[in-house]
């Protein structure tokens, strides 16, 4: 699946997007964030406070318990500050 990152999540991880295949036991957005956090210190830094990072699946906001099965694009980003 394609993962995309924005704002300080993107800066901490050091890339705007990547293609990854998480293992089958990673079923939800929260589990995906935890799996990513274990991939290296830049990911651990981005997800050091996982409660604050928001997510979208296929360009729609989702909660941490949302299942990721079938997702084409999953985005992680800080709380939004537009307007």
């Amino acid at each position, binding site marked *: 699946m394609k993962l995309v990152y924005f704002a300080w999540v993107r800066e901490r991880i050091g890339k705007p997007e990547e293609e990854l295949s998480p293992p089958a036991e990673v079923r939800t957005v929260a589990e995906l964030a935890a799996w990513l956090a274990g991939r290296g210190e830049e990911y651990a830094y981005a997800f050091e406070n996982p409660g604050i990072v928001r997510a979208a699946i296929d360009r729609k906001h989702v909660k941490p318990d949302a299942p990721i099965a079938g997702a084409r694009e999953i*985005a992680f980003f800080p709380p939004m500050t537009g307007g």
Partner: protein
Amino acid sequence: MDCPITVRIQPGPFDAAAEAARLSAGRTDVGAVVTFTGLCRAEAGRLAALELEHYPGMAEEEIRRVAEEAASRWPLMGVTAIHRHGRIPPGGDIVLVVTASAHRKAAFEAAEFLMDYLKTRAPFWKKEHHVDGSEGDWVAATDADDRAAERWRR
């Protein structure tokens, strides 16, 4: 009710007066047009510019979802929402919301709803650039914005 919805995400400036005029052009049933423009503040001279990052695709889709919800909750005759991205200097326009209705109450309320929801749901992030040339921090989301959006929940 026929409520044309226009959503645009663009780097360049917009013409608020022209966008407002467009919502009532050629029709005689519109009695109220509310226009809100959000601008970049200098923050006491500290700020050289705001840089607005966005999620292409989702930004337009999410604002359209919010506009459609507004049109379902109030008797609107038109909604226009324009959000800029990229580097915007103090005094520059950031966001425009225009609502049209037969009466002012719906137009006022819908415009406020749109802005409250847009601030907490539209995928945009502001970074500060300082006048001394240094790159500042990402602007933090505020509890006040969350509460403003929360009060429309039902």
